[in-house]
């Protein structure tokens, strides 16, 4: 486990063309890490995530992604991700290859990835058109009942990036609250990068808490408020107003580009990004 600045870590571990999962199911979304990927202008990424959120809208809108594996691509509680839509509908700023699942299918795929099985099983996709557009959704016959059961291939990202509440000095990571498929995405990855709200002497984790031991973590950066505008339970709330405002910002290509220039590209790190937003408000 390596402790470093987010800038160093993204530079060292995320490379053009890789498959990258910034997971977080409406909680602990690694926004700071996503912005650093934007700043470093990574290209041709295969982005993976159950719920591409605003941060994927930004990565796609800037043109960092060549492909997206996902199961629900909206602005949660608000509506569309306009940059994602523009990429799919109009190939702007570049075409985006999409690999589409249901949540259940993608959860099974991450689970298989974490367990290093080549595929996952689910009773799913029956009667839908999804297998028609995603040839990766297949089926096996149960060796006991002869039923057909849907299969999905394991997802094993080159890099998974998470945001968590805390790491201890050894690099053990504590994740609390709504955890989505973060643990599975973490354990499925070849490289695991974690940003944390703070580094503490001791996690004081309750028994049976969700702790990722230091020896499965590649690198950690301390980034306070690193999930903003998403939230970190116990630290700060979700900025719902930002999610609402994003709908307007992202609707228009120019306004989006200006916003990225002004707030992401013109800030050197996450603290400056937050300051620039606060100034604008």
């Amino acid at each position, binding site marked *: 486990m390596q402790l470093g600045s987010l800038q160093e870590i993204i530079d060292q571990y995320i490379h053009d063309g890789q498959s990258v999962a910034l997971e977080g199911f409406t909680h602990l979304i690694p926004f700071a890490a996503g912005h650093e990927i934007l700043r470093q202008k990574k290209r041709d990424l295969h982005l993976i995530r159950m719920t591409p959120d605003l941060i994927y809208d930004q990565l796609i809108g800037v043109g960092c992604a060549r492909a997206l594996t996902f199961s629900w691509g909206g602005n949660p*509680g608000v509506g569309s991700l306009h940059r994602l839509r523009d990429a799919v509908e109009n190939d702007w700023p570049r075409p985006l290859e999409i690999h589409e699942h249901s949540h259940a299918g993608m959860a099974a795929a991450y689970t298989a990835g974490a367990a290093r099985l080549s595929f996952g099983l689910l009773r*799913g996709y029956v009667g*839908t*058109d999804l297998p028609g557009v995603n040839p990766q959704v297949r089926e096996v016959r149960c060796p006991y009942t002869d039923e057909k059961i849907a299969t999905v291939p394991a997802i094993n990202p080159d890099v998974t990036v998470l945001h968590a509440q805390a790491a201890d000095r050894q690099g053990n990571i504590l994740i609390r*609250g*709504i955890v989505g498929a973060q643990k599975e995405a973490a354990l499925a990855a070849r490289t695991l990068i974690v940003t944390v709200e703070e580094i503490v002497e001791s996690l004081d984790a309750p028994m049976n808490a969700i702790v990722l031991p230091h020896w499965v973590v590649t690198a950690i950066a301390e980034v306070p408020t690193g999930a*903003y505008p998403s*939230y970190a339970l116990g630290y700060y709330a979700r900025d719902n107003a930002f999610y609402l405002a994003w709908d307007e910002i992202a609707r228009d290509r120019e306004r989006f580009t200006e916003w990225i220039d002004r707030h992401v590209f013109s800030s050197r790190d996450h603290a400056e990004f937050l300051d620039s937003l606060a100034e604008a408000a």
Partner: protein
Amino acid sequence: MMTIAAARLIWPGCVCFVGIGVPSAAANLARLTHAPDMVLIYESGGIGTQPRVLPLSIGDGELAETATAVVSLPEIFSYWLQAGRIDLGFLGAAQIDRFGNLNTTVIGGYAKPKTRLPGAGGAPEIALHAKQIFVVLKQSPRSFVAKLDFCTSAGFLNGHGERARRAIAGAGPQVVITDLGVFKPAADSQELTLVARYENVSVDKIRQATGWPLAIADNIDVVATPTADELRVLRDLHKRTEIAHAGDVLRSRKTPRPLTSQVNA
């Protein structure tokens, strides 16, 4: 009014898988009125959540803090939904057809759609495994269509028993609630049939808002107007929600909290 109509159909003790928007409002309205012991499950992992305010997203902190258990998303979909533990699932859609099949994926062709919608999320498997489904959506000829542009979630497929023949575990959409009326599947064909309308909405208006020749029940009920209690609870819920969501997160960060490491790394 969709919210109130939907809430009324929820029964005490019901284990309900909830999405954001009208379903969440309806389920919480039911919980705060006639079904206090119902169990709310959000796909984000909260089991038995009792939010004091309506979540804006499916994974708000409120849902974790008030839950009996908070589990991972793979667990929600395997041990809870797929295992058949959900009595009632709510689904919305951009398009519905006469057999209750739903589209939340694209308008137009898949490869180069006219409108790319958010996609499937939990819906395809909720549609299969919840013991029954309520569908809530706004009704117009653009949403009530003869043929879906894409089938995201199975209703009764081609009807006439096809769902049962394919041995799908759940019973499928039992009620469709729109801003104009309420629909239920016919016993034999499973074709959606108008069974109730709101006051001041004519059957003709509903027929015109439907993209296929609509089946009409012999007796059309009128949905009762909201009671004072329903309106009060719903207003209070929305008010609490507004206040809770109005906090200025970015500025509150400026109040002193240690942004530096506790460790001299």
